[in-house]
């Protein structure tokens, strides 16, 4: 596992911190909500008790006629279009027969009571007008009879007392073929608590016949009128805390009263990520729909109200764009039954909100912090592993002989110490190499002198008149000495080559021209093989020392010749590779043994059979010295077609810095000793 992966793992573990914080916060949130709900319900219950006395009087055995407050007047013209939105609330009263029935709606507008009777009459009578008679008797004692006039107007008469003012006005219109509509209007103060609305159908309009009757009165009890009284509203206003809105509804959910104050929104609206965080926290409860604008003509269907009307107190939190609100609903009881409910709409608890906001901030901060710490850690790990990798690469370059020193490191930490230790190690190795190199030089020199003594002595001895036996011995001794001299010579040559590589004067060299000339030359000298130049371009310019490059080519072709059977083809190849050229020799020999990979270019390494005669194995080492001298490198591999090996050197177009390169480890001497 790399350092970076290890740190990624640590970063993941760190991520557990905000997650656990999240769960803690949720717990906290739940506890806070429960406490708030208890507090809200506890505060609302006394209000509900206070509102008990404001419930309408029980209408036992009577039909209840709600008088809905209205914010606009109906025009009393007999047309029902201005009642349109209220049709759903109409109550229906039918006669015992199926021929007659009517729907009644009542509204209070300012201080007036207005009503619509929609009569369905199968026997509307003749003469262009209904022969029906409508009697309205109010709890206050006022009683009126409405009959249809020919002209479409209604005639209203008082039944309670003949003559006098008629405070009720009415109008009628025919409902095409099905019946007719009657609108009426009366001051509210004259209405009282009950209403007996009766329609008398005299059928074909024959006077004296017994009418069919439909009425709001059951038995002898007229229907009860229920008003949302301003007094109730005033009472509710006194109970509402500032910034809160109270709704008082009856058992059916009709709004009996609502306070006029505005609900304070929480200080800051919740939008964007804050709202999202709140939702995640599970703070929002219930449906998404909010309460309507306050008004009297409403029936609330909110879930909280429904629960309260079923006898269950509770509250829920609503998150709206302009803030957080709580809706707390408690049932209003009378005589052991639920008679209504009180709904308090108040701004979201400041404490909860603040704690949530603080928490949201904490979560976001924690996530950001963890992200930052993770990124920081990864960056740090990346930087650390980059430094270690750089050190490793530099060490490998030094080991491969491509560089002589590690980059200087000034960091004072452990990696810096490690780099400096490496640097010291490389320095010591370098000193040791120099010592060995000097030793080789000194040794060759020191050995030369005694060898000269031996050889000159042998030369002298050969000229003496020696017996045949002794002459043979001297000849053998000479042979050995010559061979020794040959080895020393080879060692000296390699040393000189290193010097000349470092001192080489570089100039423009065209590898293609050079390869073509060499191919021709080799072909002229060696007729046992076929020679070919394989070039990919017409020119391959490099900056180099042509003599050295040819020397490298000599070594490579010597090598190829010794491995390629007679008649085989040897190819000299120049190919574009990267920002330089690959110059190599392809032979048809047995290929490279896998065991030699990586050592092929070391000195004193040979893949030849030991039986092939004396061979120092310095040829490819020389090739490497030359390649490195040019800032290039050597490559050796088997041909793709398996026909042999291809060994060569890559030379950059421009050498980086020739002269600073030094062959790896000891230059043990030599180069190409081929006896």
């Amino acid at each position, binding site marked *: 596992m790399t350092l970076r992966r290890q740190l990624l793992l640590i970063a993941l573990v760190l991520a557990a911190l905000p997650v656990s914080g999240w769960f803690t916060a949720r717990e906290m949130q739940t506890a806070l909500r429960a406490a708030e709900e208890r507090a809200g319900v506890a505060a609302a219950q006394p209000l509900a008790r206070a509102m008990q006395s404001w419930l309408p009087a029980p209408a036992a055995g009577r039909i209840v006629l709600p008088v809905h407050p209205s914010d606009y007047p109906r025009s009393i013209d007999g047309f029902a279009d201005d009642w349109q939105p209220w049709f759903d609330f109409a109550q229906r009263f039918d006669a015992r027969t199926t021929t007659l029935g009517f729907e009644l709606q009542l509204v209070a507008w300012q201080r007036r009571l207005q009503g619509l009777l929609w009569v369905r009459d199968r026997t509307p009578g003749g003469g262009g007008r209904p022969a029906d008679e409508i009697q309205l008797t109010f709890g206050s004692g006022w009683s009126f009879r409405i009959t249809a006039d020919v002209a479409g107007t209604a005639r209203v008469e008082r039944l309670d007392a003949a003559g006098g003012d008629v405070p009720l006005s009415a109008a009628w219109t025919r409902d095409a073929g099905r019946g007719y509509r009657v609108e009426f209007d009366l001051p509210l103060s004259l209405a009282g608590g009950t209403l007996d609305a009766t329609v008398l159908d005299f059928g074909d309009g024959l006077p004296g016949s017994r009418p069919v009757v439909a009425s709001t009165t059951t038995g002898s009890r007229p229907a009860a009128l229920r008003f949302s009284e301003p007094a109730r509203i005033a009472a509710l206003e006194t109970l509402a805390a500032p910034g809160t809105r109270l709704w008082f509804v009856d058992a059916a959910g009709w709004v009996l009263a609502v306070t006029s104050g505005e609900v304070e929104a929480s200080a800051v609206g919740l939008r964007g990520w804050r709202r999202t965080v709140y939702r995640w926290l599970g703070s929002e409860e219930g449906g998404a729909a909010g309460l309507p604008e306050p008004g009297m003509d409403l029936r609330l269907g909110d879930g909280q109200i429904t629960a309260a009307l079923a006898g269950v107190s509770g509250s829920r939190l609503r998150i709206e764009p302009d803030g957080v609100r709580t809706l707390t609903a408690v049932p209003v009881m009378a005589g052991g039954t639920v008679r209504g409910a009180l709904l308090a709409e108040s701004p979201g608890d400041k404490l909860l909100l603040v704690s949530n906001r603080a928490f949201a901030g904490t979560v976001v901060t924690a996530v950001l912090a963890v992200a930052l710490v993770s990124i920081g850690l990864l960056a740090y790990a990346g930087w650390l592993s980059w430094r270690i990798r750089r050190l490793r690469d530099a060490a490998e370059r030094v080991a491969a002989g491509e560089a002589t020193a590690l980059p200087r490191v000034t960091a004072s930490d452990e990696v810096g110490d490690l780099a400096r230790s490496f640097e010291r190690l490389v320095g010591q190795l370098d000193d040791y190499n120099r010592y060995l190199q000097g030793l080789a030089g000194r040794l060759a020199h020191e050995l*030369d002198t005694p060898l000269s003594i031996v*050889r000159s002595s042998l030369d002298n001895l050969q000229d003496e008149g020696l017996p045949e036996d002794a002459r043979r011995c001297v000849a053998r001794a000479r042979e050995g000495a010559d061979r020794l001299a040959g080895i020393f010579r080879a060692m000296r040559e390699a040393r000189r080559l290193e010097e000349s590589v470092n001192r080489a004067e570089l100039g423009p060299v065209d590898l293609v021209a050079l390869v073509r000339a060499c191919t021709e030359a080799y072909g002229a000298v060696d007729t046992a093989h076929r020679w070919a130049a394989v070039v990919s371009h017409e020119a391959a310019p490099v900056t180099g020392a042509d003599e050295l490059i040819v020397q490298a*080519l000599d070594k490579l072709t010597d090598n190829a010749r010794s491995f390629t059977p007679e008649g085989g083809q040897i190819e000299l190849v120049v190919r574009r590779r990267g920002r330089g050229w690959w110059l190599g020799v392809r032979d048809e020999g047995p290929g490279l043994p896998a065991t030699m990979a990586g050592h092929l270019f070391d000195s004193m390494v040979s893949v030849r059979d030991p039986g092939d005669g004396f061979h120092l194995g310095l040829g490819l080492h020389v090739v490497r010295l030359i390649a490195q001298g040019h800032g290039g490198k050597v490559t050796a591999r088997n041909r793709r077609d398996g026909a042999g090996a291809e060994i060569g050197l890559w030379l950059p177009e421009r050498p980086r810095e020739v002269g600073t390169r030094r062959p790896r480890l000891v230059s043990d001497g030599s180069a190409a000793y081929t006896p």
Partner: protein
Amino acid sequence: MSRSVAVVEDEAAIRQNYVEALARYGYDARGYSDRESALAAFAARLPDLVIIDVGLGSEPEGGFDLCRELRGRSQALPIIFLTARDSDLDIISGLRLGADDYLSKDISLQHLLARVVALFRRLEVLGSGGGAEERVEQGDLAIEIESMTVSWQGQPVALTVTEFWLVHALARFPGHVKNRDQLMDAAKIVVDAGTITSHIKRIRKKFHRVDPAFDEIDTVHGMGYRWRQ
């Protein structure tokens, strides 16, 4: 009277071997182990030829000083340098000490004697005033075989015996490529290929001193060298 040859060499065994070999070939050979004793002996009379080792006992480059002093006394005295270090060849050349040849120590006695004989011969020819000697001419190049002298565009080029043989081998058949082995045979030295390269380099430099436009020795990649036609 036999010719006198002085061998200045700090290594006693080598010195004696050389002295003995030279004596066997009829030279009046004497050995000296250091610069002082050699100079003391030469004070009265200079030998006919001197073989000097570069490193003399405590003086690593005592041979150079000795050569300079001897050259100061006689321009004609043939001097052969022997050295164990390859780099010395460049120094000798660079110092322009006027040595007639410089050889590495691993040369065989026979080759050394051949050099001695050659130098005496050149001396003789020059002493006799030249004349009808064999001569090779190749464009601006003129080679006097007997006196082992070379001139370019009429001006003498001071070549050592080794260099002379190399130029001779190349110029005799212009256009023919001579590989390193052939050149080594011609120069009667057994050295490595790299040494031939540096010899050729030195020869080019010497010709350049006479004629900066000199470009007659051609390198044939992979094969050797040739004298341009």
